[in-house]
Each structure stands twice: as structure tokens, then as C-alpha cells.
């Protein structure tokens, strides 16, 4: 699967968290995962996760991955996700 990582300056500490989250999510969701990016959402969300389908199972896998990454990095509450499908992003 072709993969493109785009870096936008300035780099923030959150970007490293996003990279870690990508590593976990690509294993869990495979090609259901379409995009992960850091962003500044209207509601304070800071990571946008775009998935092909947004079933309960997929959403729980995203929250599993976030919990795992926050545990690994010792940074609870750092990832505030906006989980969307392509038509919502």
C-alpha cells in the first residue's frame, strides 16, 4: 500500500504522538485506516482519524489504540480524537 507522510512546520510534540498512534492503528485497522493528522478542531480535538467505515468495532479499536499509546508514553488525556469517515472530513 503506498504511504505518504507529509510534514507541516512547525513540528509540535503532538506529532510524535501521532506517529506512534499511526503505528498502532495501521496494525489494528489495516486498510480501514485512511488518514491520521494532527489538527486544531473547533471542539478542541487535536488528532483527526479518517476511517473507511465508522462501526462501533472500528471506533473501539481507535480508542483502544489511543489508550495504549497514552499508557506507553505516560501522557493521559493528550489525544483528543476526531474520528470521521471521508464524507465527514
Amino acid at each position, binding site marked *: 500500500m503506498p504511504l505518504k507522510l507529509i510534514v507541516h512546520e512547525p513540528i509540535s510534540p503532538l506529532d510524535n504522538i501521532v506517529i506512534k498512534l499511526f503505528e498502532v492503528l495501521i496494525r489494528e485497522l489495516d486498510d480501514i485506516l485512511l488518514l491520521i493528522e494532527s489538527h486544531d478542531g473547533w471542539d478542541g480535538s487535536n488528532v483527526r482519524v479518517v476511517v473507511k467505515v465508522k462501526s462501533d468495532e472500528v471506533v473501539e479499536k481507535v*480508542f483502544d489504540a489511543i489508550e495504549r499509546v497514552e499508557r506507553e508514553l505516560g501522557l493521559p*488525556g493528550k489525544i483528543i480524537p476526531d474520528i470521521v469517515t471521508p464524507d465527514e472530513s
Partner: protein
Amino acid sequence: MYFRKFKIFYEEALRDLDIEAYNKAISTLWFSIEALLRGLLLKVNKTPPERAGKLINVAIEVLFRDIEDIFHLSRILNSLYYRRKEIDHRKKIADKADAEKALQKYMKATSIISKKYSWIKQYLKVNNSQNPDD
């Protein structure tokens, strides 16, 4: 004031569940949690952020740093907010199962929070007819 809102929203959410207003129940459960987090932050002289995402982030950082289940609490708060956003801002229409899952998460979140702030339990006491376990 916010703790009173925390209780009122909780009671309203239970009534919403009773009358099968599942979308409203999910939103109201989040509003109850939101009021609780705002009240707790004000209690420690911190200004609560307006935006929900930032509110979760600051509440975890300021209020719950020292609790054992902090990572799980972070997940539950995010998950409850996600469900509310799906209902209020996206195409999702909730059914009974969705509302019951939201209530379970709400109860889990308040249970974890009450390990540190045990006095919040008094706000969750409702008449037997409104008890979610009935």
C-alpha cells in the same frame, strides 16, 4: 452551581431514557459530565476551557493525575464525548443500545472520579423509579 447542573442533567438523562429519547439522553449524559468537570476545576481555582476536547485534556492533567485508572478514565471521557458529537453534529441516530452504552460509560466515569472525590456520589442519588438498574 455546576454540581447542581451535574445532578440535574443526570436525572434528565435518566428520564430521557425512560421516554425513549435516546439521542437526547446521550447528549445530556455528556452535559452532566461536562458540568462535573467544570465544577471540579473551579473548585481548585482553575478556569475550565470552553472547548470540550480541551476540557477533557485539562481535567485529566489537573484533577486526576494521581488516580490509578487515569488512562481508562481518559478513554471513557473521550468516548462519551465522541458519542455526544456523533449525535449532535453528525448523521448518527441513537437507539436504545447506544444510549445504554453511554449510560454504562457515564457510570464508569463517575465511579472512577468518585474514588478521589467521593462526595460526588450524593449528586447521583435518585428516586428508585429513576434508577438505571431498575
